[in-house]
């Protein structure tokens, strides 16, 4: 890439312009992902799309600031724990449906709270959206983290350009 010569002396990542813009934009992308997840039962979107948006905010950080800064923020063991937590929550909602409603995956909370078109409505659907969003975010982040490690370590002869 064109940004191979590092202008900000010594530190890893891309140029100062990219770093500045990324540090402004990352919060907006992260908030938009959370909005897409939480309002998935009211507006277009849902757990999967919102989780991918959350993961892409981390990918932006990884491209701009280098892999090490992202690993400080969200280390690999924590990411894999979040991945497992999302899968566990989704399965737990399904089993709770079996316990309270008698059928696997039944929407046992739908009568309990909220009217339609409110944020707190639709029973277990927002909870499932949150679980799936957590899971998708963590797992796509893990994919890119492991792939970037792989790219770096399989080419030991070439100088590291810092963005991996």
């Amino acid at each position, binding site marked *: *890439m064109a940004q191979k010569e590092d202008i900000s002396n010594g530190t890893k990542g891309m140029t100062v312009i990219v770093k500045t813009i990324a540090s402004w934009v990352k919060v907006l992308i992260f908030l938009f992902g959370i909005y897409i997840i939480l309002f998935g039962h009211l507006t*277009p979107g849902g757990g999967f799309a919102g989780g991918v948006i959350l993961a892409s905010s981390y*990918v932006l950080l990884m491209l701009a600031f280098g892999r090490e800064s992202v690993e400080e923020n969200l280390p690999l063991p924590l990411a894999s724990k979040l991945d497992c937590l999302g899968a566990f929550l989704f*399965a737990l909602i399904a089993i709770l449906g079996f316990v309270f409603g008698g059928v696997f995956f039944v929407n046992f909370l739908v009568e309990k709270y909220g009217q339609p078109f409110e944020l707190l409505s639709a029973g277990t659907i927002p909870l499932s959206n949150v679980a799936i969003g957590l899971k998708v975010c963590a797992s796509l982040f893990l994919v890119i983290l492991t792939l970037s490690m792989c790219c770096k370590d399989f080419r030991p002869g070439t100088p590291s350009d810092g963005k991996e």
Partner: protein
Amino acid sequence: MAIFYVLLLFIIIAAIIAVETKNLLSSVICIGAIGFGGSLMFLFLRAPDIAITQVVVEVLGLIILIRATISRDLTFISGDREFFGMVVSVVIILAIFLAGMKVFDTSLPDFGSPIFTKVPEAASQTYIEQGLDKTGAANLVTSVILDYRAYDTLGEAAVLFTSIIGATVILRRKSRKRLEELD
């Protein structure tokens, strides 16, 4: 309806360029163009959920592919394609396509018109009529994928989980170190 033909022409041209070009980076960019064309098509077909997912996944996949192609030394494809095999495969695919056109010509609904407008007892009629009352979700797509068809979503999550486990086990640092020691 003309917008769909324009988008279809754009997608087909991008697909041909993606296969035929020698430069790997332009091939990856053409794949991205295919994805964004498909996303626009979903948007014009009034399926914003799928359009959002398509755009987001396309961006992430494009980043991964560009990182993979840039960091490799080999960015140009060398060597010619085998002419005979290409002709045979094109003829076979064209024959299957024409046979399918012949078979499904009368029974399929028009492009862009869903099947429940023709079939009154389709399952999607039930979802549209009772979905808001039974699930309470204003977005009917979410009520289908997380309530009526939640098993499918569970299967999808299981597939994602299993593939991530495989990828992290194969690519993690510890296993690679052990492989290097063996070498």
